[in-house]
């Protein structure tokens, strides 16, 4: 029975052309348009280094590693930023006049002062975060195992590439974010597959659901086999889009394929749970529920910066909670972190938030999902 339902759900979903359009072809078309639009932009407007100021504090003067890092990142052909040592008054004035993007004030911690959030600020934050994490890791290692203070370790500690995966700035094209949001968008769109499959098992969704519910097949088995069928289709459709972006449009996703697949896999779990959530908690036909999923996806994609890249940073700055519960943003940010940073902690944090989001959706749906009798149908 399990495989009987699985095979038939699989057939039914792949025969729904309008669903396949939204989940596979629409993102592919959009990606093609993005590619056409950005191909000139990326060649003409390669990443430009930005200006920052560093306040000359006592902590800054004592931290040779940090100074070394700033020097490394502000020199060479593909430098990230230009920096100047300044006082806080002058730095603030320059910030207000938009002469600098931010200034760093190294007190107990390194404080980043900005006017507006944008992609450059995000890069700067990433560098500082990585610096903290890595330096604390080295400090811990050395404090517990002082004999490890070898020359090799110290060399690594003093190398900026340890803190920042700049690699001569080959990964500094921020327009890739647009393409990453497409992955997030496709992920959420694919929730319509699981919504569609689960909807047909609910007696209150119409005669088909009622006929299925009165059969002698246990509901939990049908749910599991349907979810497996939809999960496979969702994941494959995501891989198709990923392959199109990587191999046809040559979008750079970095080198960590395992992490990319992990993000896609977790994204698919989120979309499955979203499909169940919409299917069980909203009343109406499949078309109405598909509309809800499409609407929600578009809002999430917009907030993740798909239409206007700075929106991602505005949301992250003004409404950080919203950024952390927006699955499109979390997927986009994860892919960007894979592309930009060598250190995967940010990806894992995002994956954790995605899993939490999926779990919450599951918890909210579980009562309706387990329901076998209704007040009315």
């Amino acid at each position: 029975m399990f495989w009987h339902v699985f095979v038939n759900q699989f057939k039914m979903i792949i025969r729904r052309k309008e669903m396949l359009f939204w989940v596979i072809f629409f993102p592919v078309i959009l990606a093609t348009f993005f590619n056409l639009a950005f191909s000139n932009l990326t060649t003409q407007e390669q990443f430009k280094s930005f200006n920052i100021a560093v306040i000359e504090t006592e902590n800054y003067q004592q931290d040779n590693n940090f100074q070394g890092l700033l020097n490394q990142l502000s020199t060479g052909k593909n430098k990230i930023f230009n920096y100047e040592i300044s006082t806080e008054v002058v730095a603030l004035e320059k910030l207000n006049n938009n002469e600098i993007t931010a200034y760093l004030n190294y007190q107990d911690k390194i404080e980043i002062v900005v006017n507006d959030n944008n992609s450059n600020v995000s890069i700067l934050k990433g560098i500082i975060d990585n610096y903290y994490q890595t330096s604390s890791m080295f400090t811990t290692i050395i404090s517990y195992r002082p004999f490890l203070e070898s020359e090799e370790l110290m060399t690594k500690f003093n190398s900026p590439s340890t803190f920042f995966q700049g690699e001569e700035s080959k990964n500094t094209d921020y327009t890739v974010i647009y393409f990453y949001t497409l992955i997030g968008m496709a992920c959420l769109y694919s929730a319509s597959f699981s919504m569609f499959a689960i909807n047909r098992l609910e007696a209150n969704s119409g005669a088909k659901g009622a006929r299925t519910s009165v059969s002698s097949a246990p509901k939990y088995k049908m749910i599991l086999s349907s979810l497996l069928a939809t999960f496979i289709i969702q994941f494959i459709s995501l891989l198709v889009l990923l392959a199109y972006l990587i191999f046809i449009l040559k979008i750079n996703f970095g080198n960590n394929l395992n992490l990319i697949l992990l993000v896609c896999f977790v994204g698919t779990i989120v979309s499955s749970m979203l499909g169940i959530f919409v299917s069980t908690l909203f009343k109406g036909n499949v078309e109405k529920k598909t509309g809800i999923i499409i609407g929600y996806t578009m809002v999430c994609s917009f907030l993740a910066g798909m239409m206007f890249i700075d929106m991602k940073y505005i949301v992250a700055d003004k409404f950080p909670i919203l950024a952390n519960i927006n699955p499109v943003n979390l997927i986009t940010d994860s892919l960007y972190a894979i592309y930009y940073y060598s250190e995967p902690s940010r990806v894992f944090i995002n994956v954790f938030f995605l899993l939490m989001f999926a779990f919450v959706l599951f918890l909210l749906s579980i009562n309706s999902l387990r329901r076998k009798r209704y007040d009315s149908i």
Partner: protein
Amino acid sequence: MEKETKKKVTIKPKKETKKKVTIKPKKETKKKETIKSKKEIKKKIVKKPIVEIKNLVKNYKKVTALDDFNLEIKEGEILGLLGPNGSGKTTCINCLLSLITFDKGMIKIFDKEMSPEAYDIKSKIGVIFQDVAVFNELTVLENIDYFCGLYISDHKLRKQYVEEAVKFVGLEEFLKFRPKQLSGGLLRRLNIACGIAHKPSLIFFDEPTVGVDPQSRNKILEGIKELNKKGATILYTTHYMEEVEQLCDRIVIIDKGKEIANGSKQELKEKIKIGEKVTIEVLEINPEQYKKISKIKNILDIEQIGNTINIVFKNGNHNLDTLIDLLKAEDIKYERFFSERPTLNDVFLEMTGKELRD
């Protein structure tokens, strides 16, 4: 011929009497007894209720859909459940199938309490819903196979059942068609095939012929009779009284969530006031004559439309005789005169009232 008759009369009884009395009296008595007891057993088996609803109450917020409702469906019968729109028929079926909750009462099917987890009971039930419940993404064959597969795991057996169901509803030529490509009648037949492919012994038909042409309807009704002949017990709901007349052994009329009548067609017809309906197409009639007709005993209702007089008589003896005598006495000439017994429609309208529902 006469001779032959005589022979039969004179010879046969003697032989029979002899045999009975002298040769095998005891054995024959025994045989008769055993036959009798077998019949009794059969009768008992046939009349055993396989569906029992007791004191069922279902409220939708402030509306009572089923009000202390009781129902029994006996094994092997076709029970017609009739009622106006909103009377509680579909609610009753949904409660029976454990699709919806109810406030009070008990439902037993095959002697076991019905619940959503009663998979052994569910495996013996087939449902044909009012709305066509098939998947547009699957072909005719795939649809029947899908629903059959929710009951039958064995692949070979399922294949055989599906083939039989296809043949039963006559969809052999449309196996690869998608439901959207089928006409209304074919779609209804597909709907039925999906509900009966697993060979259920209890089948619920909820208005299965809505929007179907007379040919398809006839095919469907014949199919239902055949299913019943093969042993299926059937609960049939419809608005078409002629279908009920044609199909059902017993009828339950439900209104406002309560049973208001229960019996065979004949029993129900006897319960109402109308005895017969008479139509006379007169050539000429004056008001005085019409007045005299209208004063005949047992008339429930009389109306004149042009030259046609419609008379509804109460149950009673010699109504037609009295009428014909009067027509002769008054020398009222008529072209046509016909009388009909009350129909199930009359029963339904008298019991549930003529006011519009919904």
